[in-house]
């Protein structure tokens, strides 16, 4: 699993395909909101801006990781390897998570500096909320990207398949982020965080168990 993760990160570091696309999209979306919201509205909309941006930009990046391997045929090289195919899922999930974490840091900085939401009063709690939300998103998006990448209309299908299933993540992450950004603390956001954590565990375990069946042609 570590060799796959190491290779994915080396490829991303060398080509910067996913991260470049992510950052450009993040900047564009934040700029759009900046021009359309007044400072008061920006503060209120910050949690929604954060998650809408991460999810739409993230879908693009997650699909890219599979597309590169699919186009070169290296995907089959991975499947041939004597590793549990569930481990391929976990490696891809972690690689996507790391790329999304970088985008998340850039996005949070832009929200503070450009959108003017103010510096979060509880940064560690915000990191915790974002981590839980990103794990759920990455697990689901990684699983469905692996399925959709072999289909012709993959760019259309991935959002269609993933977005309805992401509703619990979006609601919980936005609510928890809103509470934390308003200075409420993690304890106040606990009900939302519990649902997020449960979702993360279910999707990650299901992805690990189902991956072999889903990628076999």
């Amino acid at each position, binding site marked *: 699993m570590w*060799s*796959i993760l*190491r*290779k994915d990160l*080396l*490829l991303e570091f*060398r*080509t910067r395909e996913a991260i470049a696309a992510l950052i450009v999209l993040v900047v564009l979306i934040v700029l759009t909101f900046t021009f359309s919201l007044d400072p008061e509205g920006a503060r209120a909309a910050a949690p929604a801006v954060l998650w809408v941006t991460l999810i739409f930009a993230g879908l693009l990046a997650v699909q890219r990781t599979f597309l*590169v*391997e699919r186009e*070169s*045929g*290296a995907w*089959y*090289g*991975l*499947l*041939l*390897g*004597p*590793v*549990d195919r569930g481990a391929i899922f976990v490696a891809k999930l972690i690689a996507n998570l790391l790329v999304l974490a970088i985008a998340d840091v850039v996005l949070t900085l832009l929200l503070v500096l450009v959108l003017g939401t103010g510096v979060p009063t509880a940064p560690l709690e915000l990191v915790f909320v974002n981590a839980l939300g990103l794990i759920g998103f990455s697990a689901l998006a990684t699983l469905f990207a692996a399925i959709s990448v072999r289909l012709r209309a993959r760019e259309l299908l991935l959002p269609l398949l993933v977005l309805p299933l992401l509703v619990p993540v979006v609601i919980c992450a936005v609510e928890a982020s809103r509470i934390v950004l308003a200075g409420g603390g993690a304890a106040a956001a606990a009900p939302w965080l519990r649902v997020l954590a449960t979702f993360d565990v279910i999707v990650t375990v299901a992805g690990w168990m189902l991956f072999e069946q889903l990628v*076999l*042609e």
Partner: protein
Amino acid sequence: MTVVDADALGKSFGRVRVLRDLTLRVDGGDTVALFGPNGAGKSTLLRICATLYAPTAGTLALFGSRRRSAEIRRRIGLLSHQSFLYPDLSARENLVFYGRLYGLARPEHVADAWLERVGLAASANRTVRVFSRGMEQRLALARTLLHDPELLLLDEPWSALDAAGADLLSALLEGLRAEGRTILVATHDFERGVALAERAVILHGGRVVWEASPSDATVSVEAAYRQVTGAVAA
């Protein structure tokens, strides 16, 4: 020991049936050449044997087991039309990655040895993206063999290779055959296929339609191919 035991194997992609009722046994140490026109099902058969595709009918046992476990995959090497290489990694990085994937003790050392063996040592640090098709095929061959597989599945291995590369491959395969590896090679190259194999099998329409030993002086695989595929097509 029977290494590949395919019984009434079928494979469909949507409504297209690629393999139908295909039965084939390959014993340990055998070298079998698969011939057949385009679309006969050779590549699909090899990919099923490599555990990349699941059959839609029939059964396949590899090394006596119907399970598609990681341990079974460790014993298989597949050389396909696609090289399975990463264009943005160097030749050496590709081999080191696959060495690690297969759990080799010293992947860097094995990678360097194979780069030398396939004549790519001078291009070890160049990215695969700039390789010619022939160089990529040589590197794909190294990728296929670096974990020392017992069962070799080769799909058009001589394609894209220049004369020197093709001779290198034939010599490598001859050596592997002498070591007792099991080899299943799909090819359109009658001369090289017949020279290498102890058994020739012709596929047509997803079925085995003819098989014989090419060493039998009375048998001409090429003539049989023309007759059998022509007769079936008619």
